[in-house]
């Protein structure tokens, strides 16, 4: 079982250091592919785009996702159940469908804007960011909601009883208590954004391609050792983010258990 899971990873890492030009053939140790990688201006550019897209979309989707999680957990409003169901759609919808949807949306929207205001917009950095925000909100919201649901709502009432305004109650009571959930959601969002190929490929424009999409396009010309190296870097980056996210959740769970123990023990 584990062989199927880990053998490809090990092979990938090993061959990314192979001196042979033909992937899958060992030709002695070298780090030349990594050096090449960082000298390649296109790869540098796409890494830059990836990071910027990930940061911007993570910040915005974390804010929006947290807001919607709070709205769904704390308030009653008309259409709440519909909103609740709709929010989960991006998680359920296949990537390709999502990608086609976003592409059509942008094409139509840009046509309309062009028609009405005469603004000629084209696909690029902004469209990628918007698409990533669109699917990330759902994931962030799910993670944050679990945390908000576990938080005692009377704490917010107590804050407001103690003269806190709505904003102060959020800033000093709610936010510190849901922070582990918000951070976990943000890490999930950044990971999803860095990894996404399908949606990005549809909405990316000339000159603004993310790293995974670029790698994917390289593969069509055949697998090269450079691709191995890029893949390893992406793998490592993802692992660090996931480890961070798991670590955060562990830490907050441990704190919760400790609180239970100390209150329960007395």
């Amino acid at each position, binding site marked *: 079982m584990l062989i199927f899971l880990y053998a490809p990873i090990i092979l990938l890492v090993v061959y990314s250091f192979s001196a042979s030009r033909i992937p899958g053939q060992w030709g002695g140790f070298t780090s030349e592919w990594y050096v090449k990688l960082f000298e390649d201006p296109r790869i540098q550019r796409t890494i830059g785009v990836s990071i910027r897209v990930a940061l911007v979309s993570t910040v915005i989707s974390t804010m929006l996702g947290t807001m919607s999680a709070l709205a769904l957990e704390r308030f009653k409003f008309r259409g709440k159940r519909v909103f609740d169901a709709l929010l989960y759609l991006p998680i359920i919808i296949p990537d390709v469908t999502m990608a086609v949807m976003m592409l059509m949306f942008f094409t139509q929207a840009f046509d309309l804007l062009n028609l009405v205001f005469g603004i000629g917009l084209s696909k690029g950095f902004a469209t990628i960011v918007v698409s990533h925000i669109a699917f990330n909100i759902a994931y962030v919201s799910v993670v944050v909601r679990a945390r908000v649901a576990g938080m*005692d709502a*009377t*704490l917010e*009432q*107590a*804050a*407001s*009883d*103690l*003269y*806190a*305004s709505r904003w*102060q109650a959020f800033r*000093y*009571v709610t936010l*510190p*208590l849901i922070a582990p959930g918000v951070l976990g959601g943000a890490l999930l969002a950044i990971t999803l954004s860095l990894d996404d190929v399908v949606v990005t490929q549809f909405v990316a424009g000339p000159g603004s391609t993310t790293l995974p999409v670029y790698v994917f396009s390289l593969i069509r010309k055949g697998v090269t050792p450079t691709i191995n190296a890029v893949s390893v870097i992406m793998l490592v980056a993802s692992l660090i983010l996931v480890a961070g996210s798991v670590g955060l959740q562990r830490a907050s769970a441990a704190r919760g258990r*400790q*609180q239970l123990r*100390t*209150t329960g023990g*007395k």
Partner: protein
Amino acid sequence: MTERSGSPSNSHAAVSLRGISKIFDDVTAVDNVDLDIADGEFFALLGPSGCGKTTTLRMIAGLEIPSAGSLQIFGEEVGPLPPNKRPVNTVFQNYALFPHMSVEDNVAFGLRMRKVDKAETARRVAEAISLVRMGGMEARRPAQLSGGQQQRVALARALVNRPKVLLLDEPLAALDLKLRQEMQFELKQLQREVGITFVFVTHDQEEALALSDRIGVMDGGRLLQVGTPEEMYDAPVDRFVADFIGRSNFLHGTLENSTTVCLSNGDRINVPVVDSDVIAVGDAVQVSLRPERVMVCDPHEVPEGHARLQGRVATVTFLGNSIVYHVQLDWMTVVVETDHRPDLRRRAVDDDVALWWRDDAIAVVRP
């Protein structure tokens, strides 16, 4: 609504409710309540769960907005104001201490939100912490405190703001029996010390009797009666009140005039004067007969001039300091509780007995 003790007459009651109602969707949680709570009073809202007492408290706190009526605190209309704009503070049932803050930061929260200057905040926080005898625990987190200590921190966190009215939602419900009795005493002491009006909600009649200057009993969203603990026990006006505060026997009858009730077995008995505003002559009423106020004697030995009921002892229950008899009349069963003393003759099952009482030992209540 009925009040045996007239509401405080000063123009600015600490809390004044006029025609207050709260309707959730289609459930009426609080139904047209009128109530005045005097400055410096320790007032209990007593009732079973779901009677509307907590909703009433939350409306005073601003955590619920009344659907109808006027709510004033020291003469100022606060009905629609949010909680942070009211001169009241609340001790929540589960204390609602902020788990991510130390005891000191919890207590200082209200002052910091109001931007009281630092030196003043530090001084008042230290004062409040020592008032509730939590000195030395300033750096602890709530999770590291026992239930009783959390309760004290919650009190300090509210009192440090010097509210005009302190609201307490079932303040002792989460504590075990022994601690509860200790905290009852401490609460009462604390209230005398700080002189602030305390309004607290409880479903525990003993707690209400022990702590409060006056009690308001609620059921089904309505305020049934307000009075001192003695008034509530001695002169309930509603069967629910008589039944909820202590135990009682209820004899059915009709009010013939303000001092006479015709029981359903045809006997006429004298009763304490009934206020015609509360119960009208000709109404169906019940006579509340407290088990410990009924005397048992041999038939025909009832002192002259007292109402009597003839019956037969059905069961005898020994409780140590008292004996409880169930006496079977031909039309109902009456529970009687007598002291267990050598000078009182103990009755046996199937003894024929007579029951009697002083005319002022009973109360006429709405059924």
